[in-house]
């Protein structure tokens, strides 16, 4: 039986399309209007709301909660003070990434972890004799992402705290009479917040946010717009960019944190002695520089893209919907004997950047921005290549994303 989220009663009224996908057993809107690109622009130029409630939510608390999380998560939770949140990974003991998620630290001993897939069993098994409780509170809360340059203004009218909250900061506050956790987090690469609210009060809180957004161009946005946004923002997605290492059949499907582009999480790790699952393998990989891949952005040469299609008698397509498959990267055009040097995991046209862009994994020697690669594309039923260049992620990274409120 398909489930609905705590916001569904209201959001479904705003959904003029009836198009949903299934996200971990919940209805999740693909789009609310006939124009998902319009929803995307609401986030890039005004404000949008996205129902991210189907995320799994785990409350982890107890005297040893910090020690426990420090031993299972890739980033050091001890450096995350109450009132802050961390985007982090967890790995298997071979140092391959299982999943990613955000940990919100409420107090010295109380944390909330969100994850895209179920993970409670794995975490619980690692508890040992530590004094820590893990609780699945997924159904107790709805999470509404409020994203875009006007998100701060819309939320500040309801909660003055929104005005001063720092990037990856969070606070306990209220919207109307409903207690909420307000965090400056999101999955769009823009200025944005997430509001976590008890399920019973979700619709009331949503209504107040919608009301506050009136006149600010606020729109609900669906998964189609979200995919455009997250690719521009360089944010990976499990089962697209990689497979959970415990569910992968071969190491080809697995990635290490470095290979996933998360080497920034590992800064200083070689010199500390924190023991965590996968830590030894990760330190070994860092020391021996044995990573197979580097994650980079790719940007297609616009001129070659256009001429490739024009010469073939076609109008150059510029489709903001991501390809549903991986594409291969070569060192030279295949017609010129090129051989594979990487692969693109997500690829689409970016309306804001006015280029075709992708998230890719390349041989580490090609990671330097501007390295030339050749992207395989199908043209008239046969494969050819088009010139692209590697680039630093994220490809879209406005200052407002992390800037302090004014």
């Amino acid at each position, binding site marked *: 039986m398909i489930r609905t989220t705590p916001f569904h009663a209201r959001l479904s009224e705003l959904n003029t399309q009836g198009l949903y996908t299934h996200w971990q057993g919940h209805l999740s809107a693909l789009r609310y209007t006939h*124009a998902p690109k319009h929803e995307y622009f609401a986030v890039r*130029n005004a404000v949008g709301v996205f129902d991210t409630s189907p995320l799994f939510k785990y409350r982890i608390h107890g005297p040893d909660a910090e020690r426990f999380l420090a031993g299972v998560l890739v980033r050091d939770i001890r450096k995350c003070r109450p009132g802050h949140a961390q985007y982090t990974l967890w790995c298997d003991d071979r140092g391959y990434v299982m999943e990613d998620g955000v940990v919100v630290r409420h107090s010295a001993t109380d944390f909330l972890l969100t994850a895209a897939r179920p993970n409670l069993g794995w975490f619980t098994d690692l508890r040992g004799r530590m004094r820590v409780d893990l609780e699945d509170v997924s159904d107790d809360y709805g999470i509404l992402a409020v994203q875009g340059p*006007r998100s701060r203004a819309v939320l500040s009218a309801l909660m003055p705290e929104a005005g001063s909250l720092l990037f990856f900061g969070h606070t306990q506050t209220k919207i109307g009479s409903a207690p909420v956790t307000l965090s400056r987090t999101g999955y769009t690469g823009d200025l944005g917040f997430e509001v976590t609210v008890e399920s019973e009060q979700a619709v009331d809180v949503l209504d107040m946010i919608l009301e506050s957004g009136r006149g600010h161009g606020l729109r609900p946005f669906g998964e189609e717009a979200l995919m455009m946004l997250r690719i521009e923002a360089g944010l990976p997605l499990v089962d697209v960019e990689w497979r959970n290492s415990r569910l992968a059949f071969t190491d080809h499907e697995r990635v290490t944190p470095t290979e996933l582009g998360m080497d920034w999480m590992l800064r200083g790790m070689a010199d500390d002695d924190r023991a965590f699952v996968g830590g030894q393998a990760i330190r070994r990989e860092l020391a021996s520089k044995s990573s197979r891949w580097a994650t980079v952005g790719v940007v297609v040469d*616009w001129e070659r893209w256009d001429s490739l299609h024009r010469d073939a008698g076609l*109008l150059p397509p510029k489709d903001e919907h991501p390809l549903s498959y991986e594409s291969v990267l070569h060192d030279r055009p295949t017609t010129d004997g090129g051989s594979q040097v990487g692969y693109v995991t997500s690829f689409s046209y970016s309306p*804001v950047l006015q280029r075709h862009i992708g998230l890719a994994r390349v041989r580490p020697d090609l990671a330097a921005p501007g390295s030339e690669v050749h992207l395989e594309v199908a043209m008239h039923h046969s494969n050819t290549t088009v010139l692209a260049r590697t680039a630093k992620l994220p490809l879209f990274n406005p200052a407002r994303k992390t800037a302090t409120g004014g």
Partner: protein
Amino acid sequence: MSSYDAIVVGGGHNGLVNAGYLAKAGLRTLVLEQRHVVGGAAITEELVPGFSFTTFSYALSLLRPEIIQELDLVTHGFMPLMMPSSFHPTGDGDYLLLGDDHGQNIQEIRRHSPHDADAYDRYHHDLDRVVQAMQPLFDNAPPNVFGPKKGRDPEDQADVAWLLNHLGGIEQKVMHDVVRLITGSAADWIEDYFEHEAIRGYHASSSIIGTKVGPMSPGSGLVLLFHRMGEHDGHLGSWAFHKGGNGGFTQVLARAAGAHGAEIRLGARVSKVLTQEGRTLGVVLDDGTELRAPVVVSALDPRRTFLDLLDPRELPADLVENVERMKFRGVSGKVNFALDALPVFPALPPLPNGGGVDHYGGFMNIGPTIEYVERAFDAAKYGWYSEKPFIDAAIQSVVDPDMAPPGKHVMSCFVQYAPYELRGSDWHAERERFGDTAQAVLDSHFPGFDDLVLHREVVTPVDIEQVTRLTEGNIFAGEFLAPQMYFFRPAPGWSQYRTPIDGYYQCGSGTHPGGCVIGSPGKLASQRVLRDLRSSGHARS
């Protein structure tokens, strides 16, 4: 001694594009803009605190994608907010609402006419084929095909060969459609596909813009085709509101040109171009300041470029004659509003929060049928403005909330027909009544509209001329008529951005391909300048 390599006269979009390319190529480039703001006819002005008006030009489509890339406009804030819909009241209380979803569009057409549902696909495909065939002509300077073949410049020869080769490769059906469009009326073209009056009316809406034709006049097909040459993100004929209006766009151009090294001087009105023995020396400003440069590029319209900035006696007689003959008959005005709330279209009640504004997200086309628009044209033929004008309306603040305070809106209305010369009166006397007629039409489609109006700005063709210096207020710096396009824009023999004065060039919308915020005149003129500098050995390394 000259302090600049090139001076661009006029900081409208083409002047800025031109300066951007010249500066990028290493020329010390100065843009001289008469007003306190760049943009020419593409400006955004805060006429009422919090309300941003696109006084003249109000949307973007034809801007060539290459210019976005080559001038690095994204880095400087380029942001076209795609229109999610276009909305066409059918005049009987019903409407046609088309959007981004093809299947839903087909059903919307079928709701009015099952016959027209498949015609819709065929129509757009045929037009796309024509655009595909014409695009290379649009994107390159017209080759010099006339005159004696002997002694022709080898580059010219290559260009002619390219053109003939390209034309020779076009399918017969497509070429026939090209000719039907260029020589025929929009009505004839459209009626071959659609039977429903309102669906015909919807498709005819772009066929009359800025040109003194009705949709039944031969030549309106050309105007229709011209507008179809636009694109966003690979979708031909699609439109966007630039963030901050078209003034927001020209600010992006100014930043890009500046980043490439161009200097922009505001409040600097050029009174004449200095010449000596058939060569340009620079320009003189209204205040008498002389500025020297071996290259001067005029972004003004052909009348200004040839007859105001130069002494006509310096020019060949046939050029003077052709420029004087060129048609600039402004036929449109603007009536822009600050609104207290969104208007209400009775057949489409607003949906709850966050929904239901899609019919206000793009153009609202007030011109239900071809006959309605043709009758609106009748008035203009006899020197008067339409009692029931065609209106292309847009509430930009729906897509771009920065344009108005929360909950309030700005509405841009392009109103046609409004001939530059009125018979028996003048625009000073008729301005507010012209505004009233447009507003009355809006109130008839959106009951209660009058009560929403917080502020109204009426822009007549005379205002356009006085503020922007566009002759007779013609928004395209010369109408889109076959005898003044391509090889003949702005005049036979002078379609390659040069003038008879060495070092003096033209890059305004009066040159190929034309107006409508394309940027190509500015770009193609810069290529001409740089090519000439290279061949004369004056190029800076």
